[in-house]
Every structure is written in C-alpha cells, then in structure tokens.
C-alpha cells in the first residue's frame, strides 16, 4: 500500500520537542564575538559626522567600523530590472534613508558590551525631507536618490484602453489599501561566520536559500563561491522575508575576516521589526464593470507599490499582482498598470504570497462592492463568473496560462461546509433584532501561482553500504517538514523504511546546487527532483542486481515490501539495497547514487474558496472572527497533515492582515509599531479553530500532480475576513473599510455612514 497521501507524523519533531532546535544563536562557537549594529534614528538625513572614539575605547570592544572601512561595493537592487542606480551601501554612506538603517558595526566580546558601546557612538545628521506616503513619492518633488531624477524604481504597463468599460451597465470603483505588514518569523535574523584553517569562509545563516547566500556573499566580498561554505542550521521561520540576503549578513562575514575570530550577529526583535523586510504595501485603484444581472465584463487595477528605501523584491510584487489580476473569473477585458516607488521606510520584500494576496484582495473586495451595487448575493455573483471546470488550460486577459482547476467544486464545498444559506438567515435575524452584535459573512474565491519564478532544483539519492539512503536536496526548509515529505517520496520508490532515510539540506558543501524554499515551490520542483532521483537510482540498482543474479536487467524487479531485487518469478533469491551499494563501491568505485537537476516543470495554480464569519460590535467596532472555512486545492496532496499545517498558518497570517496587523509610521518616518508590544501580531486568543478541507485537482505539469500549498491560506483568508467585516455593517450603509479593520476604523466607518444617512434624509426633508 502506498504511503503517499497519508497523515505521516513528522520526523523533525522529537528533537525539536525534547531539546529544542539548533538555531544560529544556539551554535557553540568557541571564542565567538558579538556583532551589534548602530542604526539610524531618523528617516532621512545627511550624515555630517560620526564620532566613534568613545565606543572604540569601551570595555570589551574589539572593533568599530563604518562604510569607509568596508571597501565593499554597494548591493545592487534586489532584481535585475529595477532602477539600477538605486543601490544600497552595506553600511550607510553619506545619507540614511530609513529609521533602522545600519550606520556602524561594533564587534565586541559580548552582546551586552556591543549594546553598551553602540550607545556611545555619536552621529550628527542634517535632516532631509521625509517621504512616507507612496503617493507623495510618486510626485517626484522630494527625491531619495537625487541623481536618478525619480523615485520610481519599476513601472509596469498593461493596457491603456479608454473604452475598456464600454458596454458595461455598471462600473464600480474603489481605492483599496493593502497595508504594509511585518513578517515576524519567531526567530529573527541571525548569522555567524569564521575563517577555516584552510582560509575558506564558514557562514551559518538563518535563511530560506543556502546557495543564494553563498553566491551573494561571493559577489559582495569578491571571492569565489567555492571559498565559502554556507550551512543553515534549524531556521525559525521565514515567510519569504528570509529569501533575501541582507546587508548585515555580508557585514558579518566581512567582520569575521577582519578580526580573524568567529563573529555572530543575532538581532533583537526591535531591530528585526526595522531590519527584516516588510510585506505588501500597495495602494490599489480598482474598477470593475459588467451587466446589471451580474456578468463581469471588464476589470482594471492600478497599483502603487511602496518599495521602501532600497528597492528589493517588494518593488516587483506588482508583476505577480498583474499575473493573477483577474483571478478565478472569466473576464474578457483587463488592464493592470503599476508604479513602484521608494520611500523612507523599511524595504519591502516577499511575504507569504508576495503580490498574489494583493491581487486577490483587490478583486474579491470589489466583487463584493459590485454585488452590493446590483443587489445580488455575493455568492451568486461569484458563481456566475467562475471559470468553468472544462475550460483548462485557460489563458487570462493578462496572459497567464492556468494549468488545471475545478473552481466551482471548491466553491460549492465551501458553501456547504459553512452552511451558507443558514448563515444568511441568521444574519437577517440579527439585523431584524437590531442588537449591537451583528453577523458578517465574507467569501473569497482565489487562484494563485506557485513556482511562479520558474527555476529548477537539485535532488540526489545515494544508497549506503548498510542499505540506508541519503537524500540531498536543494530546498531549504524552515518548518515545512521536508525530512518527512522527502523520506515519504523516497521510501515509496525504494522500499526503504523512512527511518532509514536521511535528508540533507542547507549545506553548500554537502549539496552541490540548490535554489531554496520560497514561492510554494518545494514539493513540485524539489520534491519532484528527489522523486526522479529515486526512480533513477532504482534503475541503476536493477542493472547491478542483474549482474549479481546473472539475469537480464529487464527481468529484474524491486520488491518494495522488503527493499530487495529479484528475477521476476523467483523471489527466493534476491539482492538487497546494501549488497548493491557495496557492489557499486567495490566494483565501480562509485557510490550507488542518482543525481537530478530537474528543469522547472512550469508554474502551477492552486485555488480554493474561503468563507469567514465575524461578529462585529457596532457600538465599539470590535471584530471577532468566529468561524473560518477553507477549501483549498493544491493538486495531489502528499501528506495531509503537513498540508493542513500550511493552510492553518496561512489563514492566521491572512486573517491577521484583515483584522489587526499594520506596520505604520508617523509623518516624520518614525516607526509606530517597531516591537511586539506595539505591533498587533495575532495570538491564539484572536482566532477560532479552522474548518478545512481539500479538493484534489492534479496538475499535469509535474509527475507528482502537486501544486504549492504554502501560501494559499494567506491568499484566501485575507479577503474573506475583510469582506465579512464590511458585510457585518453593510446594512448600516458602510461600503468599504480599509484594512486592518481595527475597532477604531470599523467604528469610524459606522459613524461616517450614519452621518451620511442623516445628511441625506435632512436633504430629502428640505
């Protein structure tokens, strides 16, 4: 019986549960020094003077360094097609561009000594005008990079048709803010470095991409990648924000080379809130048009993307937003244009969904506005416009080709699980009673793109002389459970027990190549590579067994129940994996092994429907999420336990954006939510248990039939919860509330709607 598709418990757990993981901060590095950064306290200013004298003389300080000491080139923008002149010095050079930017680096004998010395560094700034609102940045009146003449780092044009909405009986417009949020992995950024006796650089990193770190370090430091050994020990979450290499990583390596001793950098949470990249940060102007009976005909979205002070991956999120602009609906005409601008804020990066949640949030919010405008139930409007199950592969008006889907299937199941009709009745009853606590129901149907930046992946399977298997993968898990998942795939092909399979990842010496874990790519590319390597190693073993059994390889079969090969029909005489591995070593001088560099099989498109139920106290604006139903389809599910875990975490993060979380600045660029006391990171007390289910529509684009599941929960949940909040108070005349739907915003919206109504009735009376 196949192990695939079963709820297999994780192999990672026992260690994490009994002694805890080994994160960068836990590594025992004899003689390790501590690296502390002195960070800008203002949002924009010219550095007039830096006085390091007192800090250098402080107890326990080994060295204090600024940009001029480094002698390293600036980091280019995060992607090749961004404005190439907007580079980032590793430590601020002449100008600081956001609160939290590193200005000086202190190497000290302890973190406490470093923190004490940081207080003694004196920096004089000449303040410069501050840009926080991307709309102000777009005007190009104040420039962050005066030499470039613009704040725009990336523009995307897709359609400028003034007749786009011709023939539409209804056109609805809405400005939607998809607010800036902080990713908040529980482990903050950390790195440690030292020089090996042979001169190579050893670098430990809390990252989602070990090989990417190696290659970026090599470029920045001007040394060969072979001279660097990157290891990722356990990694305490990433959510996309640890897929980038940061300036501090490079400075850590530089310091280790400079002082000739091990150096570790472990940032505090308050530093991390201003250092780890932020997510989202879009202002969207959205228009949707169609017929009075609910047929959507045209859609337009203009995106203003906040890139933060130094353009990184966040600046190109509009590309993904455009890719998924029309979502699950069959819409004939669409336009999507965008501008990405720099501001005096923390740079934006990839955060769970990265450009796709923004697309879904915009579309699903205006679908509700449209339903409200024509007086149609939002579920009925959606059903009427879903792409039919027999329409795949389906090409959207923005040029995206969806692989497979059954949107109606997931949609109907979600409505059934939620008891949609009963919920609407309950809502009616509450409204009729007129009490303070009103019910809101929000729907979101989504499709998203995984493995959206199509790259291949490395996978290898080696059989050891004792019959055990070693798997090497280029993926870089940080909670996803690849040890368990990859062992399942290999056990299935080889007939070797899972506990006899070791999975190696995140070590650039032990794994020659790798891309990493982000964009929900791992199973469909990395898992598929490992699966293919397992198939190929079986093929090699069959030839070896044929020699030993003096038979034709075509007649040799693998009995997976015992992990041994025999001639078909004569199972009594067999050769097990260990014997074949020893033969390979003894006779051929090479391990029994298969390596695969899998080309990207192309992007896949998971989809689903989420339904949220909220209760809103109309007197206080307080929102409680009371139910969340999620039906997700990520193709064939390898391990439902792991897949559900991904969905649960995604729902929580997505709901958090709709309800609570928002990274905000004052007009002078001071962060107002720069620690866990001020930033409303969601807790268990603010969430219900979730009601989840999968439908399984396999993709034809990889042999596993798998799509990514890492980000679906986030993408589906945000608009469902957001729509539910607005729905709870829509009978009071509220049409839209920006996220996060805090009590203050909800209360304000109710008050504004009431004022509007009374003004209208006064006008009517006059």
């Amino acid at each position, binding site marked *: 019986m196949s192990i695939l598709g079963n709820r297999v418990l994780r192999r990672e757990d026992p260690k994490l549960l009994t002694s805890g993981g080994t994160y960068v901060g836990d590594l025992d590095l004899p003689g390790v020094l501590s690296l502390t950064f002195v960070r800008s306290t203002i949002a924009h200013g010219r550095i007039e003077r830096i006085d390091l004298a007192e800090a250098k003389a402080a107890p326990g300080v080994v060295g204090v360094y600024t940009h001029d000491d480094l002698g390293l080139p600036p980091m280019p923008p995060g992607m090749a097609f961004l404005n190439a002149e907007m580079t980032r010095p590793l430590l601020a050079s002449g100008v600081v561009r956001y609160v939290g930017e590193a200005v000086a680096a202190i190497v000290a004998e302890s973190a406490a000594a470093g923190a004490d010395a940081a207080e003694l560094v004196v920096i004089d700034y000449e303040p410069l005008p501050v840009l926080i609102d991307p709309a102000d940045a777009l005007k190009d009146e104040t420039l962050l990079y005066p030499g470039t003449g613009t704040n725009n780092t990336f523009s995307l044009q897709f359609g400028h048709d003034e007749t786009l909405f011709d023939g539409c009986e209804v056109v609805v417009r809405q400005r939607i803010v998809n607010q800036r949020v902080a990713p908040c992995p529980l482990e903050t950024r950390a790195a440690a470095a030292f020089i090996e006796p042979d001169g190579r650089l050893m670098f430990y990193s809390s990252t989602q991409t070990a090989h990417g770190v190696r290659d970026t370090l090599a470029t920045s430091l001007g040394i060969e990648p072979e001279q660097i050994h990157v290891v990722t020990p356990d990694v*305490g979450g990433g959510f996309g924000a640890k897929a980038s290499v940061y300036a501090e990583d490079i400075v850590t390596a530089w310091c280790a080379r400079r002082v000739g001793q091990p150096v570790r950098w472990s940032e505090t949470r308050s530093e991390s809130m201003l250092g780890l990249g932020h997510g989202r940060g879009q202002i969207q102007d959205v228009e949707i048009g169609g017929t009075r009976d609910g047929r959507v005909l045209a859609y337009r979205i203009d995106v203003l993307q906040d890139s933060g002070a130094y353009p990184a991956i966040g600046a190109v999120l509009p590309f993904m937003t455009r890719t998924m602009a029309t979502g699950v609906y069959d819409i004939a005409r669409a336009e999507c244009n965008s501008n990405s601008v720099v501001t005096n804020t923390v740079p934006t990066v990839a955060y769970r969904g990265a450009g796709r949640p923004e697309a879904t949030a915009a579309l699903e919010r205006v679908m509700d506005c449209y339903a409200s405008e024509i007086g149609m139930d939002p579920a009925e409007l959606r059903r009427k416009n879903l792409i039919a199950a027999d329409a795949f592969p389906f090409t959207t008006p923005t040029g995206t080709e969806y692989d497979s889907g059954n949107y109606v299937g997931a949609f109907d199941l979600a409505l059934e699980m939620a008891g949609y009709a009963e919920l609407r009745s309950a809502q009616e009853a509450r409204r009729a009673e007129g009490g303070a606590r009103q019910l809101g129901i929000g729907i979101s149907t989504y499709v998203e793109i995984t493995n959206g930046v199509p790259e291949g992946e490395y996978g290898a399977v080696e059989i050891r002389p004792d019959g055990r298997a070693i798997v090497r993968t280029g993926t870089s898990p940080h909670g996803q459970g690849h040890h368990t998942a990859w062992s399942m795939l290999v056990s299935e092909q080889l007939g070797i027990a899972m506990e006899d399979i070791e999975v190696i990842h995140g070590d650039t010496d032990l794994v020659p190549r790798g891309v990493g874990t982000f964009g929900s790519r791992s199973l469909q590319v990395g898992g598929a590579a490992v699966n293919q390597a397992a198939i190929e190693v079986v093929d090699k073993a069959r030839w070896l067994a044929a020699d030993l059994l003096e038979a034709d390889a075509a007649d040799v079969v693998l009995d997976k129940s015992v992990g041994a090969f025999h001639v078909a029909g004569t199972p009594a005489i067999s050769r097990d994996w260990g014997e074949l591995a020893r033969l390979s070593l003894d006779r051929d001088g090479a391990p029994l092994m298969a390596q695969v560099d899998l080309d990207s099989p192309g992007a896949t498109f998971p989809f689903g429907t989420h339904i949220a139920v909220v209760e809103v106290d109309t007197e206080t604006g307080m929102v409680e999420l009371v139910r969340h139903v999620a039906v997700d389809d990520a193709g064939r599910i390898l391990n439902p336990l792991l897949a559900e875990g991904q969905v*649960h975490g995604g729902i929580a993060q997505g709901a958090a954006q709709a309800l609570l979380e928002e990274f905000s600045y004052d007009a002078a660029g001071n962060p107002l939510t720069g620690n866990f006391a001020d930033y409303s990171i969601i807790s268990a*007390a603010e*969430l219900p248990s*979730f009601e989840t289910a999968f439908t399984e529509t396999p993709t034809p684009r990889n042999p596993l039939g798998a799509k990514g599941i890492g980000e679906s929960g986030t993408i589906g949940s945000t608009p469902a919860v957001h729509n539910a909040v607005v729905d709870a108070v829509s009978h009071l005349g509220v049409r839209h509330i920006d996220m996060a739907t805090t009590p203050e915003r909800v209360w304000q919206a109710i008050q504004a709607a009431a004022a509007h109504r009374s003004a209208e009735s006064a006008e009517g009376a006059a």
Partner: protein
Amino acid sequence: MNVTMTLNGSDVSHDVEPRTLLVQFIRDAAGLKGTNVGCDTTSCGACTVLLDGRSVKSCTVLAAQADGSSVTTIEGLAEADGTMHPVQRAFHEKHGLQCGYCTPGMVMAIVSLIAERGDHELTEHDIRLGLEGNLCRCTGYHNIVEAAMAAARAPELRS
C-alpha cells in the same frame, strides 16, 4: 554574584552579573539552548520555563530571583529514558509545531496551564486565552490548541 538553582533536577551554581536574566543564565551560564528568545518586550513567550512549577517568561525574571528555586526547561520535561511528556507527545501527534522556535515555550506554558486547572475542565476558550502570551507564526495555533486539548485529557495528567 553567585546564583544557585535546581535546573532540570540538577543543582547548578554560577557567578553572574546581577543584571543577568534567567534566560541568559539558562542559555549562557548553564548552556541549555532549548529555551529561545523571540522578542524584547515580554510579548512572545518563546522563553517560557517553569519556575517552581509555574510558567514564567524567563526574559523577565532576573537569575537572582530564581536563586534557590527549581527551574524546568524543555530539556527537563521528558523522562530519563526518553519517554516524552504527554504535552510533547500531543504536539507530535497533532502536528503542533513547524519551525520549532516557539515550541519549547509553548509546551512549557501548556504544561503549566494544565497543572493550574484544578478541578476545572479546560475548554478551547480557556486554552486560547491561556496562550495569549505565547506567539507562534507557523501553525495558526490550530494544532497547538488541539495538542493542548489532547494533553489535558491524558490520564497521566489527571490529578
């Protein structure tokens, strides 16, 4: 100053600076790295340990305050023969952890929550409120709550 405590059943004694936090004593002086630090505002609970049987955030207790006390960390929870504590077992069986960073603190908080319930049957609501000070970014808390409910029903933890 000298601080002495019983840490996971063994007596430990170290000379530390007076400002040393309990979590620093555990991690740096005693070398037990299972207890993590996730914030600097006593918000996340990753550093939760048991101090004389009750959960505390060890980033907000001075080592000196624990002088003469008994402290239990994640490393001290399983039996000597490796048998996991019912809360640890429930986390494994219910998939209550992903990256593992919040896990030691989360497990210790739940051990304390179950111990403190008295005759009261823990409801989902009790558990969610009781874990408000322990943040997890991976699991959405769903399976953590499931694990806590399952552990609370474990015969070994019935008083």
